[in-house]
């Protein structure tokens, strides 16, 4: 894993603001991350920390206004996607970078059949014959583990369960063999058993197809099995990043430590589950200094005024907590 050419998607210092009733919500405030070829990168953070917004921005799906991309770059194979026009961006979406959304119940169009929607995903990017279109959609549905794929083509979304719909969404995302798949909390709305199935499916597909997967979730427990590298996001910034083992076994930010301590399987039976006090700050009213300091049990006085820089632990493991780094901020 070395730097250089195999970086497919690279988000650099991205800033996305929303103008809401004279307030400015700095949803994403200088976020950088990169996805290399064939690796699974997880973006982890609580609801409202800006992870979804940063993902939608990479595909140009942020409505402007009220959204505004205030700075930064989204480089795909070295090309800045933020510079592209609508037509060029359309050729990227679904074709090179595809996305799977959080809500399978509402993400499929209720008035078109599964077959129509999967075939459309192929048709918008490739010219293929009707028979090939059909063959490929059946194959896709089979690849994502839908039973009786031939018959599913004629089904409408309401005839499928949540897990099955999410499989259809994944099939659509894979339709044109994209290099990068962005999965935005794809299992959050599903039952726990189905969650595990979908997660395994992502793992399999990623290995078989050598996909680069950007997996967005609020659940650290979910990512343990699939992540190569992890970015921890809080209030619009990355607070810690590193390889999965380092994040899990050697967390260097109080927020990451809090998240890990909150995982049920780490707690002793019968013991109270750990929780981080307070809630994520409103993006329009962020605290000064380190955004995490009001909830942090290690906070010292300088945390209230000084924005923390990234502290390097080597091997790409970085954290924005100077207090843990050298003890004095």
């Amino acid at each position, binding site marked *: 894993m070395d730097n250089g050419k195999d970086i497919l998607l690279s988000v650099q210092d991205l800033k996305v603001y929303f103008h809401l009733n004279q307030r400015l919500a700095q949803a994403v405030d200088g976020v950088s991350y990169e996805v290399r070829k064939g690796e699974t990168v997880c973006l982890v953070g609580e609801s409202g920390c800006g992870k979804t917004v940063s993902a939608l921005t990479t*595909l140009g*799906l942020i409505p402007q206004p009220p959204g505004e991309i205030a700075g930064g770059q989204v480089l795909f194979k070295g090309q800045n996607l933020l510079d592209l026009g*609508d037509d060029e961006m*359309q*050729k*990227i*979406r*679904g*074709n090179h970078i*595809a*996305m799977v*959304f959080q*809500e399978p119940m*509402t*993400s*499929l*169009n*209720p*008035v*078109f*059949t599964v077959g129509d929607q999967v075939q*459309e*995903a192929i048709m*918008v*990017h490739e010219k293929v014959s009707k028979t090939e279109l059909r063959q490929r959609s059946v194959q896709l549905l089979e690849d994502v583990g839908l*039973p*009786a794929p031939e*018959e599913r083509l004629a089904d*409408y979304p*309401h005839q499928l369960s949540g897990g099955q719909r999410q499989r259809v*969404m994944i099939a*659509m995302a894979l*339709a044109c063999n994209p290099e990068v798949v962005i999965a935005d909390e794809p299992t959050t709305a599903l039952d726990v058993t189905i969650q595990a199935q979908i997660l395994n499916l992502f793992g399999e597909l990623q290995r078989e197809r050598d996909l680069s997967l950007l997996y967005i979730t609020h659940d650290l427990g979910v990512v343990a099995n699939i992540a190569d590298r992890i970015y921890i996001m809080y209030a619009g910034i990355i607070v810690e990043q590193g390889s999965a083992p380092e994040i899990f076994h050697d967390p260097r930010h109080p927020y990451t430590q809090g998240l890990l301590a909150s995982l049920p399987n780490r707690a002793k039976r019968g013991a109270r589950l750990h929780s981080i006090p307070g809630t994520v700050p409103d993006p329009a009213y962020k605290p000064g200094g380190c955004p995490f300091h009001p909830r942090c049990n290690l906070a010292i006085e300088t945390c209230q005024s000084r924005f923390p820089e990234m502290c390097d632990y080597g091997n790409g493991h970085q954290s924005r907590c100077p207090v843990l780094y050298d003890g004095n901020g």
Partner: protein
Amino acid sequence: MRFVHSTTRPSRKREDTVLSFIGRSVIQKTITLFFVSIVSFLIIHLAPGEPSQVDPLNPKFTPEMVERFRKEFHLDEPLHIQYTYFYRDLLTGKTVSWKDNQSVLGKIWERFLNSLPLFIVGTIITWTLSFPVGIRSAIFRGGLYDRNATFFSYLLISIPGFFFAYILIIFVVTQFHVPVIGLKTFGIGDAAWPRLFMDRVWHLLLPSILGATGGIAILSRYVRSQMLEVEGQDYVRTARAKGVPEEQVHYKHALRNALLPFVTMFGLILPGLIGGSVIIESIFSWPGMGRMAFEAILARDYPVILTVNFISAVLVLAGTFVSDLLYLVVDPRIRL
């Protein structure tokens, strides 16, 4: 434990369910119609005033005359007997107007044929203009086009129809020098056909436009809000994420869903055939159904009022039935 994926389809075919749905609604709607007939009969008969007392000051109306009148039209019988008399006559087609002794169904048919072109042209104008305006407003929400459309629809909603009608009449008559009152110009009978045709078009156009304006203003607003709601749905974002071109996102993925509620409305415009244009028909002296019903009420011509009432009830029920069937066709989620 083994999980068996269920691949069984619902055993009953959709065609069967549709047939049983049709059967069930015909029965249900017949029952509803029966109750409507009772209620409307009661309302008309319990309302103050009676045909025999319309003109008490007329010296010809001696008490004996009134008595004879009441006897002849069974007004002295109990209500339930009158009810059976009336609906027996209606269903056998023998109802006659108390005013001129003509067949009610014949009168209504004649007036219906007059109202029909007004209704059809008005509806076509309303629906063909409202949708493009509403959809465009929604897509370019907050833009210049949207703001202008909003302004004009509120303007049209606020102007009273009769006032707007006179402005239009004055404008057309003074600018184009064409007569617009009535079905056609009086005494034009033997002119050449192009002139006859244009005369009919002019006479039809103004009341139709007038009938449509209010509809356009309201319907285009409704289309806009419906379209806006659908544009914010997750599946529209999914379509965009797939790389579907913007026009297809709007006109295929969003519009198809936004149209669903209007299918219901489409069935419900049927009853507008009767009551929709009383004011306009009065202003333009258009011999249509609305005006006939209005005059019948003034004259307490019970058979005409009740027959029109019955036909509107049938149209309302037929309209809802058509809506349900259309919904079945366009929305795959509808289960019967």
